């Protein structure tokens, strides 16, 4: 006992300067992130309107949320946008990176071109694609003026496909970054592996699929996290490109939260919606993290 006490103390004061330096961040994480989250969840059970009030109403806000057509459309849109943007970002990003890795000429130029959209904000991206997809100004107009007068392409004014119009803009903006990350991953693969694969007579595509991609796992995890967080918080793209229209067909959960909190002055409902967003993230992240970290320990 007598020995243990000073030792514990030692470990507490070990690296003391680093620990002191971490205090502000730890404080931020606990108070701002965790505290703010708990506060939001608690107030989602109240009927707060413009100002937060502790007047509990049970699950009323959630009942209303899940019976609101606009919220259901938002969730459906997020699912479509999320799945497709995940798949296409990864596939297009990887294929571009592989193409770029063939020691092509002007690689720098191409890389810059593909990465350039990422330097633009979602607001600019949204506006640019709003114009490009406007039937009287953009793609449809150009094709029609080439002589194909029956050509129709106006996704932003068709409620059934508007979310794909948004997806195009999202991919245009985001895949460049994924490509660059993948390219860095590819460059990190040892040349010896390629040589060994060639000696064994393994075709190039098989080498990519069965050897290189598994080796690039950390890169894929990074890109997944980046794409995933981008999907959940998509808001500005919608606001700039469609404003949620036509007829609310391109609404997303983040926009619902903002509109309910600030336009409709119904904080309780907005908090309930944001809590549901948090829950959906937890449902995806917790099993994955559990799997990821427990697996590592066993190793």
């Amino acid at each position, binding site marked *: 006992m007598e020995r243990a006490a000073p030792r514990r103390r030692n470990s507490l004061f070990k690296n003391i300067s680093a620990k002191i330096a971490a205090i502000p961040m730890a404080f931020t994480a606990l108070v701002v992130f965790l505290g703010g989250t708990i506060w939001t969840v608690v107030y989602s059970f109240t009927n707060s*309107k413009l100002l937060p009030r502790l007047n509990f109403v049970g699950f009323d806000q959630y009942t209303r949320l899940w019976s609101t057509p606009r919220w259901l459309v938002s969730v459906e849109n997020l699912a479509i946008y999320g799945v497709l943007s995940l798949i296409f970002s990864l596939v297009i990003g990887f294929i571009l990176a592989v193409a770029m890795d063939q020691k092509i000429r002007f690689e720098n130029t191409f890389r810059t071109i593909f990465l350039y959209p990422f330097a633009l904000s979602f607001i600019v991206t949204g506006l640019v694609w709003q114009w490009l997809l406007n039937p009287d100004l953009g793609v449809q107009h150009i094709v029609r003026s080439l002589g194909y007068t029956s050509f129709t392409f106006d996704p932003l004014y068709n409620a059934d496909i508007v979310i794909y119009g948004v997806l195009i803009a999202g991919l245009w903006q985001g895949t460049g970054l994924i490509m660059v990350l993948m390219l860095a991953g590819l460059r990190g693969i040892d040349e010896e592996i390629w040589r060994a694969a060639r000696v064994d007579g393994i075709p190039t595509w098989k080498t990519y699929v069965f050897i290189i991609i598994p080796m690039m796992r950390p890169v894929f995890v990074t890109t997944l996290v980046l794409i995933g967080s981008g999907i959940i918080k998509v808001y500005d793209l919608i606001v700039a490109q469609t404003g949620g229209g036509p007829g609310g067909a391109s609404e997303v959960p983040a926009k619902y939260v903002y509109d309910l909190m*600030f*336009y409709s*002055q119904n904080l309780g409902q907005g908090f309930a919606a944001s809590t549901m967003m948090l829950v959906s993230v937890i449902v995806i992240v917790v099993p994955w993290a559990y799997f990821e970290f427990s697996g590592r320990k066993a190793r």
Partner: protein
Amino acid sequence: MNIRSLAAALAASVTLSVGAAQATDLEVTHWWTSGGEAAAVAELAKAFDATGNHWVDGAIAGGGDVARPIMISRITGGDPMGATQFNTGRQADELVEAGLMQDVTEVAKAEGWDKIINPPSLYKSCVKDGKWYCVPINIHSWQWMWMNNAVFEKIGKPVPKNWDEFVADVPELQKAGIIPLAVGGQAWQSNGLFGVLQVALGGVDLWKKVNVDKDAKFAAGPEMLKIFKAAAQAREWSKDTKVQDWNQATNMVITGKAAAQIMGDWAQGEFAVAGKVAGKDYTCLPGLGVNEIISTGGDSFYFPKQKDPEKTKAQMVLAKTLLDKKTQVAFNLKKGSLPVRGDVDLASANDCMKKGLEILKKGNVLPDGNQTLSPDTTGQLQDVIDKFWHDFSITPEEAQKQYAAIIAKAD
């Protein structure tokens, strides 16, 4: 010598700045940023500066939807401005209930606001438990249809005098390749149009039963269905508009691409900027020419509570200035809105404004939707109408059912 004169100069400047401090700075936030609006605000600032105080302009660009959250968070966050705009209605109710707004009853009593403000429904949303918390300063109304005269000349018809005549002309307009009705893509525009149809085609009683009494059974009834059917027709006529902003849609009417637009009186500013003359180049029909009634929404100024008693004093001066006869005339002429007091003379008003004044005088007025429904309910109704307007697979019956369900739960 030099030092002495310097000291004297310093002393003088100190007394000067003390003198200046008596003229209190008051920051006023609002979302009036377009050309005509800014000119109107300048009139208010001029009138306030003339009282020896100083108007610090706090314009917030982006419209009310962007500005309101900023204003509210400043007031609740402990950084209140001297005065702020809200729409006349219930937008600031909770701020008043939370005791964050200055009570201006003193000025209201001294000036006899309850006698001069016309129509009286305007100040009802300013008075809580017998105390005044805001000043209405103008009247804006939704119930107008704007038409391009040249378009009707082109199809060889007289300009319609009411909705039914317009409906009769629609096939001819479509044959001529003209969009009969321009409606921008933003949700509030189709929602506003639907409100106009309620008043104009359904009449005041229908509107009141739905929006004031919140009678859900009536909202689900056959009279309301007629309105939904009319809206279903109108959405067909507007489907080729394909613009987002209201002023872009107005511009389609101005340029003759579209024949008509149902929009509030602020559309008039666009016609004026384009150099068009009311009655000659364009025609306005209040209440769609059927029920000549206008709603009396508009803007009010609120005065967030201040710690500094000097500022509170300046707030009272501002409140008084805003309702001054001269200020009212100067401001509203530039703004294109109607004054809140009936005893002022607007000799230079144009054709459409005169029509509006006439209706006000007759007392054919309604409260604005903002005054009778909470922002939350308004938002929900807007979602239903917006979806109905753009998704042609939704029948009038279905939309009506959803609408009535929200009215049943309205607060």
